[in-house]
């Protein structure tokens, strides 16, 4: 599954939790960390468990637990270990926290996926190392608000201050073959700004974007969804590969351009994202 949109939902808001799965996001991140005040941590944990035991959400559910260096990390894990969720978002990733999480999941025989949230300078510089510490990691999420605070940089809508971080995250994600999830757009009413920001992230190589407003879901889904033209082109590439393989040809050209492995891989990735991928394509990239 490729997550074009991962929508944060506060873990202490029953009304929002109850409807979170109908808002069109590919996945939901229920937040036990920043969205929940210190005095409400226990209540939120209970509420989230009640919600997930009562409802059967139609979306993939991730839970952002509290960081390792808080008294809530293991309490959160203990509370959610029996829930039917897809995975965990680990905030402020570090070597220690990733190893601790991996150890806990392994010891408890839990098949949760992990998305690492990079939001410190150290985490960014060590991302490759940190994210390699667990085979359960399926994605990396850039948290630009905390990161720029750590960097002493001014957070702007143009986001030039996070250009390096974005590129580094994307490079690490490609190296590890995991998803690269972009930081949320925080101006809930600036839809055009959101669209441009999401488009920029996509063009840099992000595979999806985290969101803090349900009203951002449609715009970001649209930006990250392959266009009909892109899908048609990818299908033509795939058909071309099949024909070339049947004829025993190593390479072929399409519209006057040579089709080689990177182009085939891009086409297959795009079809996976659009939902047009078929099992028969598995052996195409030799």
């Amino acid at each position, binding site marked *: 599954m490729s997550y074009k949109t991962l929508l944060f939902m506060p873990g202490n808001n029953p009304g929002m939790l109850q*409807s979170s799965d*109908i808002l*069109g996001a590919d996945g939901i991140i229920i937040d036990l960390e920043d969205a929940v005040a210190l005095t409400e941590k226990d209540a939120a944990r209970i509420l989230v468990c009640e919600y997930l035991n*009562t409802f059967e959400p139609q979306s993939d559910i991730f839970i952002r637990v509290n960081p390792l260096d808080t008294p809530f990390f293991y309490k959160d894990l203990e509370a959610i270990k029996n829930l039917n969720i897809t995975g965990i978002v680990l905030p402020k990733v570090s070597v220690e926290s990733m190893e601790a999480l991996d150890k806990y999941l392994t010891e408890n025989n839990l098949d949760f996926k992990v998305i690492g949230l990079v939001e410190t300078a150290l985490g960014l510089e060590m991302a490759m190392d940190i994210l390699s510490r667990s085979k359960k990691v399926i994605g990396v999420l850039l948290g630009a608000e905390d990161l720029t605070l750590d960097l002493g940089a001014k957070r702007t809508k143009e986001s030039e201050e996070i250009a390096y971080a974005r590129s580094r995250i994307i490079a690490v994600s490609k190296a590890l073959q995991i998803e690269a999830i972009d930081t949320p757009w925080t101006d809930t009413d600036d839809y055009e700004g959101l669209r441009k920001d999401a488009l920029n992230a996509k063009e840099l190589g992000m595979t999806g974007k985290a969101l803090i407003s349900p*009203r951002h879901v449609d715009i970001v889904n649209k930006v990250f969804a392959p266009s009909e033209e892109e899908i048609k082109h990818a299908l033509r590439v795939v058909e071309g590969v099949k024909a070339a393989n049947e004829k025993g040809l190593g390479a072929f050209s399409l519209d006057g351009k040579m089709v080689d492995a990177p182009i085939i891989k891009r086409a297959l990735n795009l079809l996976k994202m659009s939902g047009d991928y078929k099992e028969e394509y598995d052996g195409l990239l030799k």
Partner: protein
Amino acid sequence: MDYLNNIDLDSIKIIDKSEYPTKGIKKDKVTNDIDNLFKELNIHDGAVVSFHHHLRNGDSVTNLIMKHIQKLGIKDITLVASSLFPTNKELIPLLKDGTIKNIVTSYISGELGEAISQGELKGYIIMQSHGGRARSILNGEIEIDVAFIASPSSDNKGNISGVNGINSCGTLGYAIADSMMAKKVVAVTDSLVEYPNYPADITEDYVDHILLVDSIGLKSGIVSGTTMITKDPIGLKIAKDTLKVMEASGLLKDGFSFQSGAGGISLAVTSFLREYMIENNLKGSFASGGITGYLTDMLEEGLFDALFDVQCFDLQAIESLKKNPNHLRMSASQYGNPEVSTVVDNLDIVILGATEIDTNFNVNVTTGSHGMLMGGSGGHQDTAAGSKLSIIVSKLFSSRIPLIKDRVDVITTPGSTVDVLVTERGICVNPLRQDLIEKFKEAKLNVVDINELKAYSEKIMGVAKPIEKTERVIGFSEYRDGRIIDYIYEVKR
């Protein structure tokens, strides 16, 4: 023409020169002396007096006049008000002392509605639709003794305009039938302007008296400065799905007609529709009903040819009515009177709300979850019956109370005229509309059985405790054609 066919020349008397008429000035209609006016009106016990609600919660006229009637000791009045608002809580003592015996209205909210629900009215309350009200007045079913017409402006002859004056409210569509049929018509105004006052919503030939008062109301309660689209993501999801329903119905094509309310979800539907029409180069025929700035923008953008306006909801709508010739005034009769040709009969799609809906698609917008009167049909019945596609938009829960019931508390609009329910958890189609079910399935819409959706909502929230009512009938929900569709019972205190 029996007169002409049976002329008896001997019996005809030619006017004598001594009796020839003289040129004369007709009696002045204007007075600021309410006591003298009431002497002339001679309102008696059991009289029927009427009011319109274009000043909505800013209206001062209904309270002012009814309190004067109380002061005069007149009893057993039937109050025929097109709607009643929280500001009319001042009338509660008039129920208790017998000044008001019966009420006929199309909408009631606030403490007055609660007092009636708790049995304070000695007679009955009849809840009508807007079209049904016009019908019953125009066909003589309701005979109004005196219509008091709150008038944002009037000249000294009684040409009343809703767009002029400090308390302008736009069109006066709900007052037209009253002005035509009442035995006496009194324009109540705080803005006496030079003759002729134009454009006149009600003309001088229908007005007998003009009562000049200090103020007819408070502008802030009359219209909203702006009406706002919901920001609630669930409301927006419902609105988006509603547009998909409209598209899948096949009715969204050049020349289509549309009506929606001024509620947050309805406005969001209108907003999404605007984007859809621009993207698809679509041009509609008309939009109708209560008019908001969103619709006047669409009129100016050429997305609709005309607007039929029975009530202006915001300042922008009033300005548009003043200047745009394609923004048309519409009386409540032209809007939805079932006995004549009406705009609702030409309506393709209407978006409506619901407090409750039952598994037979009957809708209640008359009483709230506590069983108290807090709404009414307005144009609900009329548009549901007339339109080709009536869509109810609502969240599945309201304050943890499920929307879908086995039986609604009061039937406002019969399920036989309700086509589709759109909620955040699915789209329910009335089984009477198999044609729509097929179209929606083809369009891969999330169509669910209303019984299944009810079961789902009850699984999540449980079944709401039944509303406790006594066996005393306090009023009737009247269908637009005059038949009674449901009883309204007293709520247990």
